[in-house]
């Protein structure tokens, strides 16, 4: 598979993502900068974490209006696999490729911690190596990760299986106590109707090696290449 990692001014998880794809997955991968107008030839494009354009105006909005932002819409409409991690998730909502918006954390703090997540949909190209209902552990690092979506839209998303990951406790219980940032319905990751665009706040690229104390992130990456 041919991967691309987007690099906006202020992206800062681009190299981590590139490293995982090249060194741990053994796949072909290129960086594409924000002037890029076409993503043809790639199978999967990653929008990495960071603070694109300094999070100015709203997190992700300035990146969404670049030539690369427009190319991402085109790429996804042609069925390409598009994954947005953290700031990448914010870019995807600003592009309207994913429903909802990401707001400032309920508790006002920047959260840098591990969370448990329940896999609610394992039928996606991004999640097919997980079990449905499996509890995984990944790190989060964000100030604006409170997922918000209106109730009627949430209902439609549930019916279509668009809620992919929910914050939970180690036993898999989804409740207000296991919700780190006040997200609607503990939502940590969602996909589009078609299932080829996926955004999540946790960082799977930081959770791929035993030396870092994690195993669960690499399963997401492996899902893409089976």
């Amino acid at each position: 598979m041919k991967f691309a990692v987007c690099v906006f001014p202020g992206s800062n998880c681009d190299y981590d993502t590139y490293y995982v794809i090249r060194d741990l997955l053994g796949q072909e991968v290129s960086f594409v900068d924000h002037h890029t107008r076409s993503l043809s030839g790639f199978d999967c494009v990653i929008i990495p974490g960071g603070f694109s354009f300094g999070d100015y105006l709203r997190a992700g909005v300035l990146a969404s209006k670049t030539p690369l932002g427009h190319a991402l819409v085109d790429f996804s409409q042609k069925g390409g696999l598009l994954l947005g991690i953290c700031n990448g998730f914010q870019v995807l909502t600003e592009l309207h490729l994913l429903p909802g918006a990401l707001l400032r954390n309920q508790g006002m703090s920047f959260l840098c911690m591990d969370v448990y997540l329940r896999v609610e949909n394992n039928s996606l190209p991004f999640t097919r190596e997980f079990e449905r209902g499996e509890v995984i552990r990944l790190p989060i690092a964000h100030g604006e990760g409170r997922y918000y979506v209106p109730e009627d839209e949430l209902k439609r998303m549930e019916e279509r299986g668009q809620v992919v990951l929910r914050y939970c406790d180690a036993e898999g219980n989804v409740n207000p106590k296991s919700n780190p940032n006040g997200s609607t319905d503990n939502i940590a990751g969602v996909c589009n109707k078609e299932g080829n665009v996926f955004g999540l706040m946790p960082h799977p690229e930081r959770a791929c090696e035993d030396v870092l104390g994690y195993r669960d992130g690499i399963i997401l990456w492996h899902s893409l290449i089976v």
Partner: protein
Amino acid sequence: MRVRVLILPRKGLLDPEGRAVKEMLLEEGFSVKNVKVGKVVELEVEDDTDVKAIAEKYLVNPLVEEYVIE
């Protein structure tokens, strides 16, 4: 002309920043009913510029924000 777009969190949505400022003011002894924290975008534009279009397409996310043009 000089135009200001005032952007605030939409009514009914939790505004943690506003809440924190309100709590601080209450602690300081002020009687404050509610506080919202938003942002101001000041534009210097030609008179016929469609500021509403700029606001709605670029400056504001209508899902979570509301705005006033001054």
